[in-house]
């Protein structure tokens, strides 16, 4: 099992969290749970509530949206982040193509952490603004 500091070392290199100070990442790391998925298992399915995000540590996931070709993503990527932050339902399914290890962050814990730590909130806001501006 990873320690909080080991999780911070992972999270600080994830693009979505680059604007979040390391000490605030420790807050996220403390609530992040390590999870494993077998090949062909779904991390989440489309139209489900986007109440968790997954930071991929190992393996590969394919994002499947009806009528579109699947997009393959790997370690360091965070499927479902925008729907999670927006409080929407998942617009696509995420299915493991091989054994996957990930950190799962649940929405309520994530929001509690944001409420307690303004630097975390500001960092996430910067990420969203940069994505919206296409500068990330």
């Amino acid at each position: 099992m990873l320690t909080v500091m080991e999780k911070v070392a992972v999270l600080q290199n994830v693009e979505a969290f680059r604007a979040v100070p390391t000490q605030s990442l420790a807050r996220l790391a403390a609530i992040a749970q390590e999870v494993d998925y077998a090949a062909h298992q779904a991390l989440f399915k489309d139209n489900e509530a986007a109440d968790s995000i997954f930071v991929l540590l190992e393996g590969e996931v394919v994002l499947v949206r009806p009528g579109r070709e699947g997009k393959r993503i790997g370690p360091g990527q965070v499927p479902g982040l925008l729907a999670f932050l927006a409080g929407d339902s998942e617009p696509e399914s995420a299915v493991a193509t091989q054994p996957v290890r990930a950190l799962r962050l649940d929405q309520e814990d994530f929001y509690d952490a944001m409420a307690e730590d303004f630097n975390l909130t500001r960092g996430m806001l910067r990420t969203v603004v940069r994505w919206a501006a296409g500068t990330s």
Partner: protein
Amino acid sequence: MQYGPLAVNMLRDYLNNATVPLPIRKQIPNMLARIPSPHSAAALAESLIQSDPGMRYDVLKALNGLRSKEPGFVPPRSEFEDMLNIELLGYYRSFQILAAIDPGSGGTISGIRSRGWESVLTRALRERMAYELERIFRLLALLYPPRDIHNAFLGFTMGTAQRQANAQEVLEHLLRPDLYRRLVIGLDPEIPLREKVLFAHRLCGSSVKSRNEALRILLHSEDGWLSACALYTVGEERLTELKNEVSLVPHDAGPLLEETWQWATTRLKAAIPA
């Protein structure tokens, strides 16, 4: 004034009472700023010396807010100059430590966005230096025109090379030459790292001679986060030569420090041949 000087005095006393829990004390500067008067401004100025850097930041932020609303309430005071000197010393000390930990960083705070991979410790040190620099500029904004100082701060921390040069020009025009020199040497990207380190050595009166010395300083830092990052680095890199230092770290200050200490100690033990 709605609350009267009695309330201001009481808040000031609570703010400076170390037995009052920090989360409560941290709310007081903002409360004082919402009672705008020369008296509340003086209470804040008298409370600038705080051992907790976050608390110092809160007091400064409140003073900046008061000054922007009622400039006459917050005249330049000797406390601001004194604190500026202390913060500058702290900034150059951090600079020495960062340069020893990661000479490739150039000792600058501005690498977070442009660089690729960097260690948790290097990034944490940069972040601490960014907070230190913000406190320095907030102090400057109590002594000099706040708008110009704020623009200069943005120029140095977020701007392009051109904006940095403009910021430097503004500061050169505003600040006393000795203060300008002390501030800008650390920030000027044109000045080589070696020259900056020598300047920091002269200013701080001591040097940080090696990476291990920097790690030793951080392991025993009052800043629990930097201490945890240093422990992680020692464990990650299995720096067995620091095993004794690690054993001396007061690791019962919280679950993060405790967990990281246990992890680092186990890794160091495993790295030493039986």
